[in-house]
């Protein structure tokens, strides 16, 4: 099993328009954490900071002990899956996955074999030449996961990746994600609004309110009667 990398945010501050945000927490390597919290609490911003799409005003971000604060997104040991727009609409499935190996699409024979294997792993065998618009929403997210596989980065960030899928499809994708995690062992941070997502796959919950992490803990504890009050209020219990 490959292994993930620990994530640490040390006094990271960021201001988005009017709202000042401050993040200070750590996650052990190879854990799966559900990032939860009300709308506007900074869940996506947190992921964007770790991925490098946003730059903190102050503080450090460490991945696997290394300071990545100044690194460009592509140079960080991170893959990210968005809710939408994970694929280039004019490129076929194979190319979209291949870009995860080479940003200029210069693929060796081994790379090609890896791409084909990754696509088979996510259940898209034989759909290499399809264009994204010829796929269902669930299939498109599978392509994104196949790219995650060929990139082999120790951290995987998912920003409401399955929000636009139906319940059965979402369950399938969660199962696939759990399997991929079992194989690659990457550290996973997934933004979700659904408590059942967290209970299904996440060992930990990171709870945000008003631009700051107010609680981090094990999922069973969070969902028990002894869980944080604000979290229980948020999920309606």
């Amino acid at each position, binding site marked *: 099993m490959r292994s993930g990398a620990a994530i640490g945010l040390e006094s990271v501050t960021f201001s*988005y*328009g*009017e709202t000042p945000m401050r993040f200070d927490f750590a996650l052990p390597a190879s854990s799966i954490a559900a990032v939860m919290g009300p709308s506007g609490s900074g869940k996506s911003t947190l992921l964007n900071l770790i*991925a*490098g*799409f946003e*730059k903190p005003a102050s503080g450090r971000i460490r991945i696997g002990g290394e300071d990545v604060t100044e690194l*460009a*997104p*592509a*140079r960080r040991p*991170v*893959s*990210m899956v*968005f809710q939408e*727009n*994970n694929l*280039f*609409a*004019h*490129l076929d499935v194979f*190319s979209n996955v291949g*870009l*995860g190996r080479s*940003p*200029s*699409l210069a693929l060796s024979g081994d790379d090609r074999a890896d791409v084909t294997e990754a696509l088979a792993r996510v259940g898209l065998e034989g759909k290499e030449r399809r264009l994204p618009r010829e796929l269902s929403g669930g299939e498109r997210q599978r392509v994104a996961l196949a790219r995650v596989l060929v990139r082999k980065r120790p951290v995987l960030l998912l920003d409401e990746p399955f929000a636009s899928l139906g319940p059965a499809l979402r369950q399938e994708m969660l199962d696939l994600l759990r399997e991929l995690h079992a194989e690659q062992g990457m550290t996973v941070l997934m933004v979700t609004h659904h408590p059942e997502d967290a209970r299904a796959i996440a060992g930990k919950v990171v709870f945000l309110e008003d631009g700051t992490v107010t609680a981090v803990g094990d999922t069973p504890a969070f969902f028990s009667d002894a869980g944080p009050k604000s979290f229980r209020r948020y999920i309606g219990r």
Partner: protein
Amino acid sequence: MNAPRATDRRVLAGILALGVVAILVGGAFAGLAVEAARDWSGAVSAFDPYLMRVARFTLWQAVLSTLLAVVPALFVARALARQAHFPGRALILRLFALPLALPAIVVALGVLALLGRAGIFADFLSAIGGGRWQGIYGLSGILVAHVFFNLPLAARLFLLALETVPADQLRLAGQLGMGARSSFRFVEWPVLRAALPGVAGLVFMLCITSFTIVLTLGGGPRATTLEVAIYQALRFDFDPARAVALTVLQIVLTAVVVILLMRVGANMSGDANLQVAARVPVSTSGTEKAFNFLLIAAALAFVAGPMAATVIAGLGADLARLAADPAVHQAILTSLVLAALSAFLCVALSTALVMARRAMELKRPAGKTPGIVEKALDTGASFVLVVPPIVVGAGWFILLRQTGQVFAIAPVMVVAVNAVMAMPFAIRAIRPAHDAASARHEKLCAALGISGLARLRLVDWPTLRRPLGTATAFAMALSLGDLGVIALFGSDAVQTLPYLLLARMGAYRTADAAGLALFLGILCLVLMLVADRTGKARG
């Protein structure tokens, strides 16, 4: 943030493009300033009653043209929106796109072929008017031609606005049993009203800076606009002082109009075409249906008339002789080369501006207002609408007058001025596609490390091919049909097709002119068609 070097390169290219535009416009202003300083009293004394009358007429014809084009367009657009499904609707919309592709001089000849003294309707008009029909010159000719250009344009823009009405709102209106009147009041009019200032402003600007139509259809000093007067002052009266006065007045006039339009919130450079879901069929009553189709048919006749007349008159010419005429060959070749260069320059400059603006927008922290450079990249190009080609041409003409190289510089002026003039339109074609693609791809490219040439090849080129093709074709057609700059700088040495056409018209070789107009019109249309096809081939 991400890939800072690539971002800086994009911004640098945009600033460079802005510099080219600034030099072109600045050089023209320098020419005017130098001349005004040299002959100050001459320029001041040129502000005489005649000049004021010309200014008044310029405004008056633009106001009338705008009213006559925009008000009917509101109803034509509404009719087309409400009759969303009938055979030929798509064809009509395509036909409505044609006038924009047609050179003004071709349209002028089409109007003359239809309504001129020897036009197709001349006998009919003589019969109902009593006495010999004198032909449609002067204000009425100008108005007919302007409405021909702008009614379909305005109708299409309004239709676009109407298509932004959410489908659910239409369903709701149907469920509430709204008839034609109340759905106009509650559903259609609010959208149209929002689009009105922008559309009317665009049409007004096009009419106030219209040169070719007034030159060819305006009759004598009674129906002359500032632009035509500038041309006459430079080419016939050799009176640069008067040209300076006229040019200053034209700039002030257009600047005032632009400022007023910006106050009411009109977007001079146009905005993204919103993507729309399939239209919900609106159920219309029998009378409304009849009224709608009558309206559409009338608009169709008005737009198709001059085009058909151009074809008929053109076919009447001795086409075989024209096709064998070396002067025609030379003019076509000159036109094509200049137009291709102009289109290339236009698209390169426009793309640089679009990319630079977006790059700066991405770099800017959220919530911060854009800085001056970003604003200049944003609206800089649309300001060329304030300085029409004739004004830029006049400035450079005056500046270069003493060098004796005025006519040698003709090709450069035609290419550069037409390129810059087409920029607002090219940007309108490129920017929505570019920015939408950027919104989808920017993060992904950053995450995967796709930048530089790889990004251009794999991401930008495939998504921008089509709008770039459209922009190129549009810029080329615009340049191909332009008579403004070449009218000033043209000579026996450098003749474009429109210039040759004007010369034949001036020599009363009407049949030749009609034949050449047919050539020119077909050339522009084929260009549009080819680009449209290649653009669509892989999308």
